[in-house]
């Protein structure tokens, strides 16, 4: 139904459809959080989901990550229909995420926190880990190597051995991104990566998001409130309001969409 990809304004080749959401409806009791929404995420693109508070953005992200299973609709991943799954099964398929409220292990060091992101890659059993010889040791070394590359990439070398609890907010966000990247995801879900940051921290984070996409070719789906950031970062934008999809397209298209303008400027709903 769709062609194979497109080329962005800055000359990146975007691939075919990676994640296809078809007619998703999600209810909590009588409340319809998501109403029959369809959209796709293509390989290599930065896809934003925006909308006013309570629009259902985080719920949508939770459907992608397998935390919620929709009552209606289908999730297609890499051309295959995905059966209802637990989050850890989804994670093994190569989808990693960060959280709106930071969810790190406060008492552990940055390094240990990022290492937990490698969990899905660790195969050796508990006993082998405890003895830490042979395979378990090799595995740890290999994983550490991946983690160190990410630490270098996100420029957090100086806090490698610092407990996360002692870090300022902006850095914690960066550590969370590091942990998500440690899983070497195909698709990275970012839930408000820039919430509560100052301008400088936002600029840094935007830089990192672009670099992740550029350097690792990671597909990124993000939720964000800061319009300026969204419009600068993303290739295509889905706009939600009250659980419905009211717009979908390039930042320019979305910006000129009357329904979107109404939703944001606050026109009365009938």
């Amino acid at each position: 139904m769709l062609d194979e990809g497109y080329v962005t304004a800055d000359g990146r080749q975007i691939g075919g459809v990676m994640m296809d959401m078809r007619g998703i409806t999600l209810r909590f009791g009588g409340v319809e959080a998501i109403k029959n929404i369809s959209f796709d995420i293509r390989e290599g693109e930065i896809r934003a989901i925006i909308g006013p508070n309570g629009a259902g953005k985080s719920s949508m992200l939770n459907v992608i990550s397998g935390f919620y299973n929709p009552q209606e609709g289908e999730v297609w991943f890499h051309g295959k229909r995905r059966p209802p799954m637990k989050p850890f099964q989804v994670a093994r398929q190569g989808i990693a995420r960060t959280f709106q409220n930071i969810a790190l292990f406060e008492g552990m060091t940055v390094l240990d926190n990022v290492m937990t992101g490698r969990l899905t890659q660790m195969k050796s059993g508990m006993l082998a880990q405890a003895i830490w010889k042979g395979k378990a040791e090799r595995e740890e070394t290999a994983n550490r190597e991946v983690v160190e590359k990410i630490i270098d990439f996100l420029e957090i070398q100086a806090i490698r051995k610092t407990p996360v609890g002692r870090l300022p907010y902006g850095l914690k966000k960066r550590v969370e991104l590091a942990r998500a990247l440690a899983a070497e995801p195909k698709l990275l879900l970012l839930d408000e990566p820039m919430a509560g940051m100052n301008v400088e921290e936002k600029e840094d984070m935007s830089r990192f998001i672009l670099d992740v996409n550029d350097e690792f070719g990671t597909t990124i789906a993000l939720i964000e409130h800061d319009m300026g950031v969204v419009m600068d970062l993303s290739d295509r934008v889905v706009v939600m309001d009250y659980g419905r999809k009211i717009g979908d397209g390039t930042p320019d298209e979305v910006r000129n969409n009357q329904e979107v303008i109404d939703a944001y400027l606050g026109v009365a709903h009938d």
Partner: protein
Amino acid sequence: MATGQPQARPVSIPALLARNVAQHGAKAAYREKEFGIWQSWSWAEAAQEIDALALGLLTLGANVGDHIAIVGRNRPALYWAMVAAQKAGCVPVPLYQDAAAEEVAYALDHCGARFAIVGDQEQVDKIAEVRDQLTELEHVIYLDGRGLRKYDHAAMTSYTDVQAAGRASDMASTMADRIAVLDYDSTCVMLYTSGTTGRPKGVVLSNRNVIETSRNSSDFDHLKAGDEVLAYLPMAWVGDFIFSIGQAMWAGFCVNCPESPDTMQSDLREIGPTYYFAPPRVFEMQLTNVMIRMEDAGRFKKWLFHKYMAVGRRVGPRLLDGKEVSFSDRLQYRLADWLVIGPLKNTLGLSRVRVGYTAGEAIGPEIFDFYRALGINLKQLYGQTEATVFITQQPDGEVRSDTVGVPSPGVELRIAENGEVFYRSPGVFVEYYKNADSTASTKDAEGWVATGDAGFIEESSGHLRIIDRAKDVGKMVDGSLFAPKYVENKLKFFPNILEAVVFGADRDRCTAFINIDLTAVGNWAERNNIAYSSYQELSQHPQVLDTIAGHVADVNASVAADPMLAGCQVHRFLVLHKELDADDGEMTRTRKVRRRIVEEKFSDLIAALYDGRSEIYTETEVTYEDGRKGKITATLDIRDAVVAPAAQVAAE
């Protein structure tokens, strides 16, 4: 090791490199922490990397005598770039990595660089911003390609690609020819002076300058293969060039590069350098941090610290100077070393330091004494780019905080009528590039160079003492001597005062601007429950002003003790609402105050200091790190300071 080669003395850095490969081939020459692990390169491996890059430069069409700009943080690959440039017959020109785009543009344009070898995207962007002004710049070579994938690569190549092209090329004989013609008089490097006044000048240093100086200074401090340095100071600074290239090549020791600028302190601890240089500011900051941490320690630890530091202060310097120390003192010092001094040195990363230097600014006696008490052989040297660093330095066992030492080996000193210090040495620079006028006014026909500093040689010890910049030393209205730096240094010795600027030339009395030290004053505010929302607010807090007034009064009392300089007491002062900053042009990149610019920019404040007002409203333009400009406004309190009566020359 018996090399058995009756080779002539090496007369260039590439020749020294070849000698080191022959003598210490497998020993570590460079280390860099990357991905959390110290990676190392032996002399032989480093030489191969350098050759590959040099050949790569030749394939790009580098000509003999081309200038090659090098911008980035301290990394082995950029040190190799300097040597590779020399091997290709070119002249390396390291530039300050934190310089603004137009500063970089000025240097690139002035030296007509055809190639620039840069660290990362930040530097690439900086050059891209000014590229249309640079007609001669042909190619940019970058080390870290992150974020550069989408850039137009028509005139841009990665470092490793250039090396690969070099390895694949057949230009080895061309390179050998170019190395063969290098002699003692060929240019080794060109360094831009930070320029306290006017435009930066390109100081041309020959192989003779660099190698002779490196040899003399290495002998002076017995530097040898097996020593370790941490290269963390700007590569564009002459000191770093001499320590990390000149002396490292001459003595054959290992250069270690930190993982990132922020990790310098922990990298220092891991490497434990044996030869260490830091500006007074760094030592001061470390001491402030130690003292702040000790404030937070438990009562027992505090007691232990103060008791054994007192022992250290009493005995440490005497031990260092090889003076007689009683058996019981030795025993106590041993105990102090085991309990306090050893662990503290380890934490600071200074356990193995055999030779430590500081220079650039005066260092406070208590800071100096602190490190000497720890048993660290911290010495002072006096130098400048035009001298290839060394003019004077303190020999082991003759170390004091108020002198800068005896003339370095091979250096002759002369003090002019007006007190200005002149020197002549094998390190004296060749010329200022494309600036014959300045060359002529700085260096006379016999090779004597004016330092621009006023000072005198102490009769008793033969050590040089520097008072101030010669042009800053002036007269006040009543004819008494005005030496601002002398007073400023005394003020800056207080941990609460970061920077001070004293005015008074051709006036009837002296006044001062003061910058508070945010670390020290902020910590004090926290302890005393004083809330503040910004630097500006803290700087104008009445209690802060009281504290500073106390410091000024103390300084006045000590200045008054010297009859010659008693006129320099500070009568009125104000605390500035912003830190003096290099981005605003108020300081040089090496953090020296640009007096004229400060005078011009804050002329309204100076006027207020002299017209008796008690406060003044002011607006100041500031430049943020990314180059944007903004404006801050403030109302500043002006305080009168307690002035001490001048000491009578013939008291009683």
